[in-house]
């Protein structure tokens, strides 16, 4: 029972972290290797707002931090990535370099050790099916479901959302219908960064804000997106359940050190058997040689 409850929670956590990455990839066709850096930045900003720049109330600090991260994402595209769009090698190197600069800059700026923590939204815990779960984790599941639902509604019943989906499906046809490709890319990067930020403020109260988390978040986000099929949202959710349960099982029967090995093995098996991922149908022909 414990495995099932925590497996579900872990899966929702994973899909929250991966959603931003896969969103940016599906719309802007750009692998955002700065994802983990944006995640940590949000956590650090929220901490700064609460502890250094006067004591903002917690909700306000969170909203501000997410807003700033979304703005960073948008500005990053507007001023840097827009100039190298379509040059695959440059895209990868540039986003990776930006991510590294942020992460290592934070590490140099003193983001080390266990001093940086965010408080839980609601303390305490309750029993579900005989398993003790704290409210923060329950809140994560609730927020996760709300995010999925609102993202679905946004992309199906909103002009901007439909434009994003149009670009994701067929860029040229969408551009012919008057959808601005650069504008949607800016929106998608802002959204993706905002989602990374949201995931950060939800998840960071469970642990410390340290730089290493940024790397592992990036890796798990990528793992989930690759297994689900890069750019496929449904696949991302399914894949995060697979990886999430696999992780909880390895933690229960082996040791938590193997979690990342599980992620890598899953990626390699996916690449060997079905390279385009579980749901990555539409781009299959493009990506296989």
């Amino acid at each position, binding site marked *: 029972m414990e495995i099932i409850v925590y497996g579900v929670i872990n899966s929702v956590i994973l899909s929250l972290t991966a959603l931003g990455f896969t969103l940016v990839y599906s719309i802007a066709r750009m692998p955002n290797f700065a994802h983990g850096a944006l995640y940590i930045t949000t956590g650090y900003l929220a901490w700064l707002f609460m502890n250094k720049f006067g004591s903002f109330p917690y909700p306000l600090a969170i909203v501000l931090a997410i807003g700033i991260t979304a703005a960073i994402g948008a500005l990053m595209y507007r001023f840097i990535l827009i100039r190298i769009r379509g040059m695959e090698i440059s895209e990868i190197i540039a986003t990776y370099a930006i991510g590294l600069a942020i992460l290592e800059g934070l590490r*140099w700026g003193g983001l080390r050790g266990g001093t940086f923590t965010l408080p839980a939204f609601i303390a305490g815990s309750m029993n579900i099916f005989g398993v003790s779960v704290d409210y923060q984790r329950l809140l994560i599941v609730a927020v996760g479901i709300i995010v999925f639902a609102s993202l679905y509604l946004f992309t199906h019943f909103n002009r901007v959302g439909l434009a994003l989906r149009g670009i994701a499906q067929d860029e040229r046809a969408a551009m012919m219908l008057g959808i601005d490709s650069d504008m949607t890319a800016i929106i998608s990067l802002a959204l993706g960064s905002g989602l990374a930020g949201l995931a950060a403020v939800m998840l960071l109260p469970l642990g410390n804000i340290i730089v290493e988390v940024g790397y592992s978040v990036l890796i798990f986000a990528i793992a989930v997106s690759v297994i689900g099929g890069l750019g496929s949202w449904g696949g991302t959710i399914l894949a995060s359940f697979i990886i999430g349960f696999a992780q909880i099982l390895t933690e229960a029967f082996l040791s938590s050190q193997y979690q990342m090995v599980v992620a890598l093995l899953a990626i390699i098996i996916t690449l060997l058997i079905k390279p385009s991922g579980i749901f990555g149908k539409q781009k299959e022909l493009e990506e296989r040689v």
Partner: protein
Amino acid sequence: MEMMRKERIDRGVRVRTAGLYAISTWREMLYLVGPPLFLILGMIILPIILEFAPYWKRVINIVCVYTLLALAFDFLANFVGLVCLGGAFFVGVGGYLSAIFNVYLHFPVYLSIPLATICGAVISTLLLMPALPLRGVYFAIVTLMYPLLATRVIEALNIFGGTNGIIGLDSLPNEYVEHYLIIIATLIFLYGLRRFVNQDMGLVIRGVKDNDQAVRASGISVTRMKAFAVFVASFMGCFAGAYISHMYSWAGTSLFALDFSIIPIASVVIGGGGTLLGAVVGSFILVPVSELLRNFGTFRIVIYCVILTGFIVFKSEGILVYAMRKYHQFERWVKV
């Protein structure tokens, strides 16, 4: 207002020396062989010149190690189209293998370095195999994950000495062997690769980057070509790793550190991608700078990343291409 534009014209000496038979003066000969001779002789003389600065003599070795990694990155990225974000993985594999051969199996140095190079290249190629039949970002993703993962696995399983690493490798016989082994290897790899990319096989490999369907239509396996290219690149990386572990007499998880991944990338971008020589120029600029900035710790990585992003966005041709243009051509303003 009169419209003006810049016109570039080849210098006379370049035109005259374009065909070897036309060379008649010392000046033309110098123009032609000067730059490569400067590089080769300079690299060979450098350890002797720096005799009075022992610290900087050590830096030459490190520069050459990074040059090898940068060559590997440049070859993979700009000739095969595979972006390798984890050059550190090659270094780590080569270094650890060489440590295992030397410390655990008691092979002498002159056996452990070549063995580690070859075995390491084979292992790296096999591990990267799953990502090779695919286009797109998969290779970058997989290479990004391997070094991070290798560190954690070694620390978690506590194999190969765990966090302490393997100590007590034999160092190279003497200082000059240490310098000239890496310098000559760098020169051989540099000019070997420059030759290789224009041979039949090199042309096919470049074809993989530009149009893999055409390569496939010619009845050549794209995956096999990519695997061979990865083997060549990881060969260089593993050699660098094996060498560095013998130089420090130590192999530890810091061989998988970010520096080995990011500095070569920065060198290639700064020096000029796709020229191979640019990788050399870039690392000869960046690595000494990074030695000067040693006190800054991880802030160095921030500096590289900022420089890297700046170059890739605003000056993507790189220093070497710019310099070569100035060397071969002159500019003047003409009316449109």
